């Protein structure tokens, strides 16, 4: 029952253009040529009204190297050892994609997370950090068969990282903004015509120390995302 209600809601959402078209129209016949609120194919053909829209929610893991910095000269805790500005972060990546034709897509992505491995600095140590990274995306489906789609995409944007000595407002912190362009490959397996599970891997083309791994779930407006 829930699934059926959800199905109705989903179809109603996908049919928004038709609903707008038919607003205030009282249909008197379901037969082609006699209906005047609808038209042939509107409920089932991809050419009717439904764009290739996808919403992704991914969990990402990123490895990168921060630019050298220091939170201050007075250690709160003895850090010891050499400096190491390699760091890892993880969090959620929200993606909205729009397809053009059968293979090309574009969209936006916002990554938001926290640092898992913090840089080792001179002096006051980094204890935690936050990350925000918006990107514009452009990609192409390279392979689409059965329930699998393999894609490659470019993600261009910037990465904001905030390195903090503690979690209060008066703690020393350093923020870094870095432009970022990533080349990624991604594979999606459709577990449902409107839902796929995906994994992705990317490397920055302007920073050899940055890599990202993503795993998540996608909701597609078109069955099988309009795959041929």
């Amino acid at each position, binding site marked *: 029952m829930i*699934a059926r209600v959800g*199905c109705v809601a989903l179809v109603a959402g996908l049919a928004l253009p038709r609903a707008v078209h038919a607003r205030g129209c009282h249909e008197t016949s379901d037969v*082609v*040529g006699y209906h005047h609120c609808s038209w042939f194919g509107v409920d089932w053909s*991809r050419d009717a009204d439904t764009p290739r829209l996808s919403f992704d929610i991914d969990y990402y893991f990123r490895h990168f190297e921060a630019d050298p910095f220091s939170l201050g000269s007075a250690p709160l805790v003895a850090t010891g050892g050499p400096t190491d500005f390699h760091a890892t972060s993880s969090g959620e990546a929200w993606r909205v994609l729009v397809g053009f034709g059968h293979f090309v897509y574009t969209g936006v992505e916002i990554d*938001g997370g926290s640092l898992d491995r913090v840089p080792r600095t001179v002096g006051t140590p980094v204890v935690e950090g936050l990350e925000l990274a918006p990107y514009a995306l452009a990609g192409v489906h390279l392979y689409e*068969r059965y329930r699998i789609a393999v894609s490659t995409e470019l993600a261009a944007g910037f990465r904001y990282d905030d390195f903090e000595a503690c979690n209060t407002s008066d703690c020393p912190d350093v923020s870094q903004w870095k432009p970022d362009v990533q080349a990624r490959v991604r594979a999606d397996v459709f577990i449902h015509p*409107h839902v796929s599970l995906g994994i992705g891997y990317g490397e920055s083309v302007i920073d050899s120390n940055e890599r990202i791994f993503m795993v998540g779930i996608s909701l597609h407006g078109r069955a099988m995302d309009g795959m041929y």
Partner: protein
Amino acid sequence: MRYPSLAFVLVLAIFTGGCYYKPASYSIDSQPFPGKRVELACLDVAVTLTDDALAPPPVLSYTFGNRCTHGTYVDLATIRVIGRGSDGSRVALHPHDPKHELAVLPIDGLWRGHEEIAYAPDPGPPPSDVCVELGHVEPDPAAPDRWVCLAASEQDGAP
């Protein structure tokens, strides 16, 4: 922050749980396709005669689902329909399409659809039986004819 997203995903997954065509099920949301069934390369097609308040008979109701995970085409525009009179005479029936809507249209993988089309002899009274060739609803020149007859005789086979 992660838990709301997980819940959101689960809700989406639950809500989309039944909204697609299950291959060979001949049903939508547990409602069976009405009428006689024909299995094509990717399409499961069912056809039956139906009534309509405005359209004069015969009106054919087509329900179809795409078993394949890739898209295919549905051709209800050039489908051949023949009426058989009570005296055994045969006449070709033509779809009522004053707005020229009928066309060969694509359908997504694992998706389904339904259409009702009225047919009229050229000219003449409504036939007692209607035979429709469903073998080429999914366009394939090499596919064999698949005639289905409806109404009084309720017999499948070539007209």
